[in-house]
Structures are given as structure tokens and as C-alpha cells.
């Protein structure tokens, strides 16, 4: 019986990519908190995950520049690009900026915790493997 490492790790590596993508979107929102006319964006993670589940595909990270390297993209993958949405502002501002710094901060913190949770899951899987390889020695 052979072990495919990609299958063994499951959806976690893909989720990690999307979380880092989302961190980038939120960082861009915070950097442009004072830019007139800038419209805050976010990745609709639930929709992205639901789509991945219904199609049985894996999530594909969105490419942001031509230099981006996409890891061996499977054709059945779903791009997160279509889930990149504009935020509906709670309170409109005169300069057209829709960034709510407090909201973005809390979303960023949430995203960080989830990223670290995935890291913990991956770490557990690796230690499982180590246990299997060393036979618990």
C-alpha cells in the first residue's frame, strides 16, 4: 500500500493558500484605509468552500501577478478569483472609501487564527506520519 502525500494532507494545503490569499486582500484594504474612492474587498470564503465541496474540486489560489507561480493546477480546481467581492459599507463616507479599519482588523485577526489552526492540523498529520515511520520509538 502506497501513501500519496497529497491525498493524505487533504484539503488543508489548499485552505492554507486561500487563507494567505485572503490575508493579502485584507492587508490591501488596511493599507488603503485612507485612499479616496478605494473600495474594500474580501474573499467569500464560505461560497468558495461550498463550491469546492459540491464539485469535489480543490481550491485554487487566485493569481495576483504574472510572476505568481501556480502549483500544478488540477483542471477541476476552482479559482478564488470569482469569489473576490466588494464589501458593502456599514456607513458611507464622503470620499467614497469603503474601508472600515476596525472591521478589517477583526477579519484579519480571524483569518490569522484560522491560518494557525490549519497549521496545527498539518503539524498533527506530520507527527502522525513520524509516529508511523519510527514505529513510536
Amino acid at each position, binding site marked *: 500500500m502506497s501513501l500519496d502525500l497529497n491525498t493524505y494532507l487533504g484539503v488543508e494545503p489548499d485552505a492554507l493558500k486561500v487563507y494567505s490569499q485572503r*490575508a*493579502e486582500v485584507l*492587508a*490591501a484594504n488596511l493599507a488603503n484605509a*485612507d485612499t479616496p474612492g478605494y473600495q474594500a474587498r474580501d474573499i467569500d470564503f464560505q461560497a468558495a468552500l461550498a463550491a469546492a465541496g459540491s464539485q469535489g474540486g480543490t481550491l485554487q489560489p487566485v493569481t495576483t501577478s*504574472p510572476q505568481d507561480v501556480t502549483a500544478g493546477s488540477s483542471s477541476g480546481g476552482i479559482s478564488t478569483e470569482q469569489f473576490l467581492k466588494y464589501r458593502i459599507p456599514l456607513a458611507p463616507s464622503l470620499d467614497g472609501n469603503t474601508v472600515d479599519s476596525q472591521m478589517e482588523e477583526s477579519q484579519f485577526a480571524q483569518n490569522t487564527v484560522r491560518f494557525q489552526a490549519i497549521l496545527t492540523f498539518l503539524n498533527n498529520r506530520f507527527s502522525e506520519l513520524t509516529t508511523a515511520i519510527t514505529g513510536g520509538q
Partner: protein
Amino acid sequence: MALFNIFNIAGSGMSAESVRLNTVASNLANADSVSGSAATAYKARYPVFQALQASLMSPGAADPATRGADAAVQVSGIVQTTAPGTPHYEPGNPLADANGYVYSSNVNVVEQMADMISASRSYQNNVEVLETSKQLMLDTLKLGS
């Protein structure tokens, strides 16, 4: 890797906010400057922030729906306000014009202080984002150990 982009984005935010802090410092320092004519009186300066989308500069990415996630901020210019400085009657001032008037700057000190706090908070936000991303990257590096 997307987390590397955050360094550029948050860095651009920090740089833009520090330009804003610089203009505030310049405005506050010159709040009491006087001049011999209304035209040469010091005028408050403000930076103009603009979202800079790197992917927009690459061909075939002009459609807003397919824009990339990276939007750094850049200072596209510094504008001077046009409000005239207030004239004061100070015949003893060496800078006074023929009628004995000097013209002070149009800087609103209270507005500048509020702007300074806003810029400083935004700067801190960017530093926080940078710090968190750095920690996440270090955690990822240590994966499996």
C-alpha cells in the same frame, strides 16, 4: 507566495502614512509663519493617496472583475490648499507690506492634530499586519518540526 505580497502592501501603506505625517509636521511647523503677501503665505499641504494595482499594469487585466487582490497604496502627489492666509495688521513686523499687513498661513492646527492621530493609527495598523504575516510565515517554515 501571497504572504510575501503583504510585505509590499503593508510597506507601501507605512510609507504613504509617513508621507502624511511629514506633511502634518511641515504644516504644524509653519502654522505661525507669516509672509509679506497673501500669495506667498504658507499654504497647508496634503498628500493624495491612490490605490496602486500592480495587476492593472499587466495586459488583459483591465476588467475590474478579474483584478488581482494586490492593491498597494501610493502617494500620487502633494496638493496645497488654496484658502487665503489671514491678514494681520503688524506695522512693526519687518515682513509687513506697504499697508502694514502680514499674512499668516492657512493651517488649521486642530485639523492637523486630528490628521496626525489618524495617520499614526493607520501606520500602526500596517505594522500590526506586517508583524502578524511575518509570524504566520515563520510558523509555516517550522511546519512538521
